């Protein structure tokens, strides 16, 4: 039971940055293609679905380990606004106790595309994540019994506008998210629910950008469609528990981006002892609805009629 309580302590914060992986952008800024990253929030409204994302977390500080199967749907309402809805089925294996299963909390996000700057390959998006109370298995899995509101700013920047004297740096892109999580209850079962600062970054190297826009080094499909990347995401409490109890993960991996879908896989390493130890992994199959259904559901709802 101790492991379940610990799960609840970090639950809200951890869910916040795992929820950010629900952002399913498949976007462009000028000639830069930004894939949907697995961990960090993407800076695009989009029409996409993760079906599925499978995550095996590293063992937590108390040895508890979970496996999750997650589905996330991202849908544009207008060309500049969108929503995301997602949920996760989870199997939690506490150390020395029987495993428990069930659904995590329902997660939604409302999004507004703040800007897209093609020449500078830059993007900005405002979002409001909501993790809904009592929509997951609270007692057994540590799903929250409170709602969390998490405003966020997501950004992306490609380095394609670097001088041509630095050709091999131009395929690099960085995306990231900065936000806060505000719980609607200050504590649950005697455990404090902190307000949190959430931040994450993805550092990408696009072989397709190298081939199309910098230098043809002879890579062809499928290798030219690979995007090696490293993602990091952290959640820092800013009240009720010490800020030193920051949790986070570092996730190196690769995404293969095709015409209609992408496949991503990353290793998961805890960033510190509050997050856990050992390693885990995540796999994602992710479909571009705007490419699969360009004349129907892949369009913004405002363009359906």
């Amino acid at each position, binding site marked *: 039971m101790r492991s379940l309580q610990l799960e609840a302590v970090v639950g809200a914060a951890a869910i916040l940055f795992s929820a950010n992986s629900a952002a399913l952008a498949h976007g462009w800024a000028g000639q830069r*293609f930004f894939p949907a990253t697995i961990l960090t929030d993407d800076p695009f409204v989009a029409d996409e679905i993760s079906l*599925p994302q499978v995550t095996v977390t590293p063992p937590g500080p108390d040895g508890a380990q979970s496996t999750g199967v997650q589905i996330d749907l991202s849908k544009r309402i207008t060309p500049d606004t969108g929503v995301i809805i997602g949920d996760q089925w989870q199997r939690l294996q506490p150390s020395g106790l029987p495993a428990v299963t069930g659904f995590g909390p329902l997660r939604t996000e409302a999004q507004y595309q703040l800007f897209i700057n093609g020449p500078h390959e830059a993007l900005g998006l405002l979002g409001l994540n909501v993790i809904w109370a009592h929509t997951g298995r609270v007692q057994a899995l540590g799903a929250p019994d409170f709602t969390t509101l998490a405003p966020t700013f997501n950004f992306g920047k490609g380095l394609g506008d670097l001088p041509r004297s630095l050709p091999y740096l131009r395929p690099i892109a960085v995306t990231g998210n900065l936000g806060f999580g505000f719980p609607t209850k200050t504590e649950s079962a005697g455990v404090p629910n902190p307000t949190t600062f959430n931040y994450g970054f993805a550092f990408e190297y696009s072989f397709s950008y190298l081939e199309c826009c910098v230098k*043809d080094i002879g890579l062809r499909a499928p290798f030219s469609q690979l995007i090696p990347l490293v993602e990091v995401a952290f959640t820092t409490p800013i009240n009720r528990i010490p800020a030193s109890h920051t949790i986070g993960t570092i996730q190196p991996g690769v995404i293969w981006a095709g015409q209609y879908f992408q496949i991503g896989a990353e290793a998961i390493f805890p960033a510190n002892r509050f997050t856990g130890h050992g390693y885990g992994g995540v796999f994602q199959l992710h479909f571009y609805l705007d*490419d699969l*259904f360009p004349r129907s559901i892949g369009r913004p709802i405002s363009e359906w009629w």
Partner: protein
Amino acid sequence: MRRFMVALIAGGAATSAALAAQAHAFLDHASPAVGSSVSTAPPVVTLWFTQDLEPAFSDVTVTNDGGQRVDLGNAPIPPGSPAQLQIGLKPLPRGTYTVSWHVVSVDTHPTEGTFTFDVGSG
């Protein structure tokens, strides 16, 4: 759990396979090659894309270091090659040239890009 996973993945794959839609057009390769150096001036620039293009909304231009167009502005999509753009060039002196393309795939997705090639240094 295993059945659930298999069903999810199979469902997703079937959805993808069942749809013969088009998608964003990526530049597959070009001649002269992206970022290349060629010893003699090419008479045309040819771009190969991953999807068929809408002729009315697809274009390519070639400019010199001074930003002046050096292409002939003709026949961007060769007959029978709906995934290609091709444009004739004026005789090019030594220098660096920028190819700028903007295309719309047949399902209306727009993409764009630029790259350079050098003449006389290959």
